[in-house]
């Protein structure tokens, strides 16, 4: 019975949207910069899923190519981001995002 119901592309897209939302939420509620960063990765993955799904839906390989590039971007971003985080954390261990608020107003 269940097997007759095939998940359509929309299902995937909706799932991706949900994932994106969770990622968004995470950036806002987590204080550890590393975890915030992970949440951004969640968002990127949601996009990737969307691209792949759309590529299938449209029978267009370009959607998958984009995912490839996004992964490169994600990698580079991680390197840079972690570099910045490390350089901060080396000086101020256990600093949360909330602690970095000297600039304001």
């Amino acid at each position, binding site marked *: 019975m269940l097997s007759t119901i095939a998940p359509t592309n929309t299902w995937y897209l909706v799932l991706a949207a949900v994932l994106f939302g969770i990622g*968004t939420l995470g*950036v*806002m*509620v987590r*204080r550890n910069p590393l975890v*915030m960063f992970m949440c951004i990765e969640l968002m990127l993955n949601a996009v990737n899923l969307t691209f792949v799904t759309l590529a299938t839906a449209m029978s267009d390989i370009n959607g998958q190519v984009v995912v490839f590039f996004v992964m490169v971007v994600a990698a580079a971003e991680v390197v840079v981001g972690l570099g910045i985080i490390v350089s901060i954390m080396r000086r101020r261990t256990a600093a949360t*995002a*909330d602690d*970095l*608020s*000297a*600039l*304001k*107003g």
Partner: protein
Amino acid sequence: MLNLVWLIPAFPLAGFLLNTLFGRKLSEPKSGVLATLMTAASFVVTVGVYFDLLSRTTEERHSVFTLFSWLPVGSLKVDMALLADPLSITMALFITGIGSLIHLYAIGYMHGDPKFPKFFMYLNLFVFSMLMLVLGENLLVTFLGWEGVGACSYFLISFWHTRDSAATAGKKAFVTNRVGDWGMMTAMFLAFSSVGTLSYAGINAAASSNHLAAVTATGIAMMLFVGACGKSAQLPLYLWLPDAMEGPTPVSALIHAATMVTSGVFLLTRMSPVLHAAYPWSGTVIASVGAATALFAATVAVAQTDIKKVLAYSTVSQLGFMFLAIGSGAYVAAIFHMITHAFFKALLFLGSGSVIHGMHHEQDMRKMGALRKVMPITGFTFIIGWLAIAGVPPFAGFWSKDEILLFAFANNRFLWLVGVVTALLTAYYMTRQVIMVFYGEARWNDHAEDHGAHGDHTPHESPWMMVTPLVVLAGLAIVGGAMQLPFTHSTKFLEHWLEPIVHHSERDIAGTWADNNKWLLLVFAVVIASAGIAASIAVYAKGKARAIEPQILADGWRYDSTISTFMGGPGRKAFDGISAFDAKIVDGAVVGVGHEVRALSGILRKAQTGLVRSYAVIIGLGAVVMLAWFLLRGVL
């Protein structure tokens, strides 16, 4: 001679300029002599012009001398032009004539004043302005003089400006006059917009040829009357004149008795065709205001103790008479009274000045008395002036006042009655003054210590410069009535002389009851005057009755103080309110916007917490709103 008419104002102007430039060098008394000579020269020219006019036929007694084009814009063409005709020359004659005398008098009166040259500078400027006023060919030139005399009056009233009362009086005079000026300006606007010119000839021609709608004519007339009220101290604008007595006495004599204050009368006479073309009720308004002013001022004069204040209120009262005449259509009578009044009131003022001078600047009549003995000439001439103003025949005032009452009777008997009562009161308070100053006991001895500073305790007669004008004016006050005697048609010289000006609008009373019984009215007037004099003698000389001098009369029916209270109280509050409105509301709104922006900035700044997660929320919320818009655009 007629083309030399420009010399009439030119002499005083030259005197003014010379005194402005060299007055300090000339100093006393040369500057005074210079000013006097200039005025006298002007008088001589005026006499020449007068005889030139006299030598012409009635129709040719009209000459315009254009100096230059003053304000030519579009259809408005205003020339700086002088008009020589019977009216203006009559005015010029007594302005320069009496002016010369008062100048002469002032040389003595102002002796020792540190600002002696300045006084004569102003005096000459005044004469110049006054001459421009009367010689003006159009309303605007007259207005130039009109404002000029106002300014000079201001300078001269506040001549002793270190005295606060003098400064305040000067300001009051100027501002009150300005109220009148507003009326005169409005009249000019109306005249220009309806006739297209400001020249007297043009306006009067339009009025007499029925080119002027009655309603417009009424508007012009009423607005001119407002102007005249201001300048000629009529109700409700009279209140500056009593205060103007703060000025030196020659000023009071020249400006606030003989000349400037009569310019309202002159103006209305000049524009008599317009008045004639106006609705009849406008005449009634003028006459009523005049009568009311006359009576009002007379009642106040009864209770004054300041020698000059009595004369000031008397002047207001007499001016009221002139307006009563104008309102009754008796222009000749108005001018007639104006001239005689100039004689005797100048005389009285100069006399009072002489008394003040002799009394070392004491003006309170209660501290005088029996001065006749120490100041014989002053006393004698003053008494002549008194007789003239009280309406005792055959002195000048009698004839002119009688003529006014005659027309008033013919016009409106109630107003006539008011005039008669006023005449009675005039005789009464003038007699009171003469008795208080020149008769009775010498009360000045009691107060001698007050004048200790002057060294000389006894009053003294004034020097010849001051006495000579008194004598001359006394002569004029005696014979002045001769210019218009009611006996026959041919004895009415003034009427014939002024005919080109007023023939169109002068009220014709021939054949009325008043005209037929004018001798009866004349006798009645004599009786009234005698009654006033008698009553006064009874009260003040014989002490047969108690003087009726209620405080409310001394206070001028509290009119002035009410206005002052209003101005200082609610008026000032209103002004303060507007000023506060400006600061708090109008500027407050501007400053408020600034403050609001600043406050908003402070609030928005709080959103800039420095917390990266807050920023994410703000961005996220912005994103949601934006996406919602697009979703709606897509779905709906």
